[in-house]
């Protein structure tokens, strides 16, 4: 992944909303006291599906509980990890514990063990810590574990670089062929920016950094490859893209794509780390092809940490200048991204802010560690951290209100109203330290900080959908999309139920299977924008077809057929109703099917792009011990029309929690001398737990006038850690410029370490 440009000031796409409404009149008959009378009814003349007036919506824009909540809570939902097949073997990977090594592996002893079915060498020279070097398989997971231990491995470590200092040291080994730095991306005029900073009323020169963070999905990466040698294979896979692995599996097994089915019915999180088959999936296919038996290969947690991806870290040196009114006038940013063998990601400074004359230079620094992967809003949290800090540090120099200074540097007025809202909710206007930090008192001090976010969130083509109504009234919606835990199954169900005035429980969603109509992968918060228009299109087409079928029975024009509250009627005679079931009973045996898809023109009326968010955090710092306790977080997010308000709030809460964890705890630790991972487990790689969770307020920005759906899950994670770090500074003057905000750094910033 290369440098990512921020999407800029997102536009408020009001197309769907502002289009003048066209109507036409329909002549029909209406019973008045049993006497039919000719009347005219005006109906909206639309050329395709619309979400309709918000006040008319029964399910959409309300708080919907997940349709798959009960099966998940009771354990009946079958995740990839849970798949058990007759004759299945369990496979395990051996991951190289060193950053770079020549490896000799003797598999004989392992193969000789009872219950061990395969032991295959995958690699003899490695380039990153955690690279898979062998795969074994056994009748049970214990047999596989025993096989791993029985591999005779000789490691000849090669020179490595696992951190910035090692990578940039003189005589460092080449991590990539062309050296340990990528080609710098430059933007702007350096001399001009430097001059603007030099002439500013307030100046700051400081370096900020964020560590490498892990996705830490509760379900690790993995697959179950059901291949027994025939002409068919089914692969159960924990993935963010049902269709992405089909062709690769086919190639590895010597099949055609039409002989391979991928299944991801339930999935335990990905956050950007799970696209494609991965080296673990490829290894499982290799074993399956050799044994002609189903193979279960889920990464063990330590392996997940070292080879399952990460969010790149960074280090950014800023020079910034602000005029006396709080407007940034110049910014020079020199950034390094730490994405292991990969390039990492970082939205270009000054991120969302206007900073006057700006120059930025971004370069990747390579190390012998796992490539960074996309992770929830790739590049944005990294960029947010330094920029939000720069603004506060300069504002304090000038004695200006932190909220006013933010607004001063944000052209887009949506942020102004959002910042004011979160400021009000968190208690900013009653807060004593609005223009300078609180004291390093030796007591406990309270502070508040802010951060903002942006994202695209629009969808694109590639998703198709079927809606089927059976004679008994049951409705099925089918689309191959995946539900990462984000609630897309509920979304699909709700859109169809809404169309027919049904309850959620009347519709069953079939998803997560590559035999179903195609769907795009879930990345970039594009799922809602890609999936919803396709499902809506299919539902709308089904309604049109059903209306046409029912019109003669209801003695009315198809345009007047209405579905509401589980009943069907003509708008002309709302008192004459059929139940949904009666209406469905009139269908031919095969029921009714309709197809829909994401069509550019039709989707334009349903989907938008460009979202805004603002968050505030309130913390308490014990200035004697360095303990940081987050007391409250408030987040507001626009997203056009929320399909499911509960899911949107869930995403906001989840984003804030993930950011809190990033702020306070998360950091990959590798010993640079031994080259080994020191915290590849959930004890030492610390994630926030229940007692860290503050009072949380998730607000949907209902002032957003767009009646179109937009993805919002990623921006939710962008600014929380910045707000928390700013709040710590605000509380007691401790500016920590490197995450996480552990007590060692807080105490150092407070000057308490001798």
């Amino acid at each position, binding site marked *: 992944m290369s440098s990512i440009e921020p999407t800029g000031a997102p536009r408020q796409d009001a197309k769907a909303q502002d289009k003048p409404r066209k109507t036409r009149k329909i002549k029909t008959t209406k019973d008045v006291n049993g006497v039919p009378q000719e009347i005219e009814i005006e109906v909206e003349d639309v050329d395709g599906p619309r979400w309709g007036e918000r006040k008319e919506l029964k399910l959409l824009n309300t708080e919907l509980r997940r349709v798959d909540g009960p099966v998940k809570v009771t354990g009946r939902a079958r995740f990839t990890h849970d798949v058990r097949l007759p004759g299945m073997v369990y496979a395990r990977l051996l991951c190289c*514990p060193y950053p770079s090594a020549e490896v000799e592996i003797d598999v004989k002893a392992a193969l000789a063990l009872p219950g061990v079915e395969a032991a295959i060498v995958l690699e003899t020279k490695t380039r990153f810590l955690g690279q898979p070097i062998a795969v074994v398989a056994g009748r049970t997971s214990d047999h596989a*574990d025993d096989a791993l*231990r029985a591999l005779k491995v000789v490691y000849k470590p090669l020179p490595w670089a696992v951190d910035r200092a090692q990578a940039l040291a003189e005589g460092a080994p080449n991590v990539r062929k062309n050296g340990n730095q990528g080609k710098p991306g430059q933007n702007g005029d350096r001399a001009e920016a430097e001059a603007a900073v030099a002439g500013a009323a307030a100046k700051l020169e400081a370096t900020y950094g964020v560590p490498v963070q892990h996705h830490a999905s509760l379900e690790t990466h993995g697959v179950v490859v059901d291949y027994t040698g025939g002409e068919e294979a089914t692969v159960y896979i924990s993935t963010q893209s049902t269709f992405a692995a089909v062709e690769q599996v086919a190639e590895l097994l010597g099949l055609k794509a039409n002989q391979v089915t991928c299944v991801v019915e339930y999935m335990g999180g990905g956050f950007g780390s799970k696209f494609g088959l991965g080296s673990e999936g490829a290894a499982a296919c290799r074993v399956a092809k050799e044994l002609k038996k189903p193979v279960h290969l889920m990464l063990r947690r330590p392996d997940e940490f070292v080879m399952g991806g990460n969010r790149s870290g960074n280090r950014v040196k800023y020079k910034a200048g602000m005029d006396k009114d709080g407007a940034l006038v110049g910014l020079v940013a020199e950034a390094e991204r730490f994405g292991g063998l990969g390039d990492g990601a970082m939205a270009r400074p000054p991120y969302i802010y206007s900073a006057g004359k700006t120059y930025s230079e971004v370069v990747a620094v390579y190390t012998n560690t796992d490539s960074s992967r996309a992770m929830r809003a790739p590049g944005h949290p990294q960029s947010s951290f330094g920029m939000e800090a720069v603004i506060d540090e300069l504002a304090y120099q000038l004695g200006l209100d932190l909220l006013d200074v933010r607004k001063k540097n944000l052209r887009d007025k949506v942020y102004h109203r959002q910042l004011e809202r979160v400021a009000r909710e968190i208690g900013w206007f009653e807060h004593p330290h609005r223009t300078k930090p609180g004291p390093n008192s030796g007591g406990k001090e309270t502070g508040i900080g802010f951060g903002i976010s942006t994202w695209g969130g629009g969808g694109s083509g590639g998703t198709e959908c079927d809606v089927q109504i059976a004679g008994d009234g049951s409705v099925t919606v089918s689309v191959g999309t995946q539900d990462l835990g984000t609630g897309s199954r509920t979304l699909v169900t709700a859109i169809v139920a809404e169309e027919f005035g049904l309850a959620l429980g009347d519709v069953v969603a079939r998803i997560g299977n590559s035999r179903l109509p195609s769907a795009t992968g879930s990345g970039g918060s594009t799922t809602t924008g890609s999936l919803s228009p396709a499902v809506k299109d299919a539902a709308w087409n089904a309604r049109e077809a059903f209306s046409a079928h029912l019109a003669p029975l209801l003695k009315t024009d198809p345009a007047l057929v209405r579905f509401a509250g589980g009943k069907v009627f003509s708008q002309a005679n709302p008192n004459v109703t059929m139940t949904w079931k009666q209406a469905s009973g009139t269908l031919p045996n095969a029921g009714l099917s309709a197809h829909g898809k994401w069509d550019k023109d039709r989707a334009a009326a349903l989907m938008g792009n460009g979202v805004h968010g603002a968050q505030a955090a309130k913390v308490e710092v*014990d200035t*004697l*011990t*360095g*303990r940081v306790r987050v007391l409250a977080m408030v987040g507001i997010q626009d997203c056009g029309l929320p399909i499911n308000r509960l899911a949107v709030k869930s995403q906001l809460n989840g984003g804030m929690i993930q950011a809190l964890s990033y702020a*306070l*705890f998360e950091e990959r*630790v590798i*010993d640079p*001398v*031994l080259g*080994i*991972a*020191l*915290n590849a487990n959930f*004890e*030492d790689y*610390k*994630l*926030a*737990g*229940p*007692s*860290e969770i503050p009072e949380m307020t998730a607000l949907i920005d209902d002032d957003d006038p767009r009646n179109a759906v937009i993805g919002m899950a990623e921006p939710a994670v962008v600014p929380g850690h910045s707000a928390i770090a700013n709040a710590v500074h605000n509380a007691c003057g401790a500016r920590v410029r490197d995450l996480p905000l*552990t*007590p*060692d750094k807080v*105490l*150092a910033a407070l000057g*308490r*370490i*001798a």
Partner: protein
Amino acid sequence: MKSFTLLNPKTLEHATRALAAAPSSSARVLAGGQDLLTEMKEHLVEPEQLVNLKGIPGLDRIEFTAAGACTIGALVTIGALEEHAGVRERLRLLAEAAASVGSPQIRTVGTVGGNLCQRPRCWYYRSEHAKCLKKGGDECFSFSGMNKYNAILAGGPSYIVHPSDLAPALVALGASATLVSAAGERTVPLEEFFTLPSAGDVKHENVLRQGEVLTKVLVPAPEAGLSSTYLKFRERGSYDFALASVALCLWRDGARIRKARVALGGVAPVPWRSFPTEKALEGAAFEPSTFEKAAAAAVTGAEPLGQNDYKIPLTKGLVVRALQSLA
């Protein structure tokens, strides 16, 4: 993990006989298994035999004498200790220490004996790929490595910190442990039970001999007028070992401190009885200037390693906060 045989003795005698019969270090005592099974899964230890104490009756009791002395069986779970009404009332710091251990799941299964005998959490020790001093290697990697969590007091040649929360509380209370083997029984003050790496045996953290079982802890009746607290600093509040902790027992005559017993956790290879802190407190007025002196005394002789220097102000801060909490 490597396969092993599981022995389920019904009596302590049976257990100690089995342990005595096993070849050196090939048998291990299993209680809650919260640490041992983890070590086995990570191949840090690979015993041939586990001797499960769970089937032995009588080791899971908490009993107070009329005079207020308390006996705590080794199989008492940490959760049971935390919730025991008598402990909460009379030995408050011990209940607080128990409540601060691990997670609710761990406290429900983990035992008092296991908590005292658990092995260090140092990430070099816990990595199979680092053959450190504790595992028979010739280097403590934390000395010049990633030592954020390591000892500032009494370290060397190993710089682990003792991970137990119950230990500092029990040391502050002047408790002792009963150790039983096929050869007999002995009772050791907990202060002497834990051993510094500099004392010679760097591979062990206590005086427990091969084949010996810690069966109970004896807490003498505290002198009247005890006020106590256990204050633990966890990086992650939900579930974490101590970066530093303070076990504090205080006896006051009006505004003056008559007697103090203080033990620190998370800062030394053993639960660290802090005599300088006690000295700074005893006879002094219970007031902020005394707290400051006691805090400074607590880190007397501290030798930080580079990434754990923060533990000095942190420990001082905790001492102050612990004293303030007893106001």
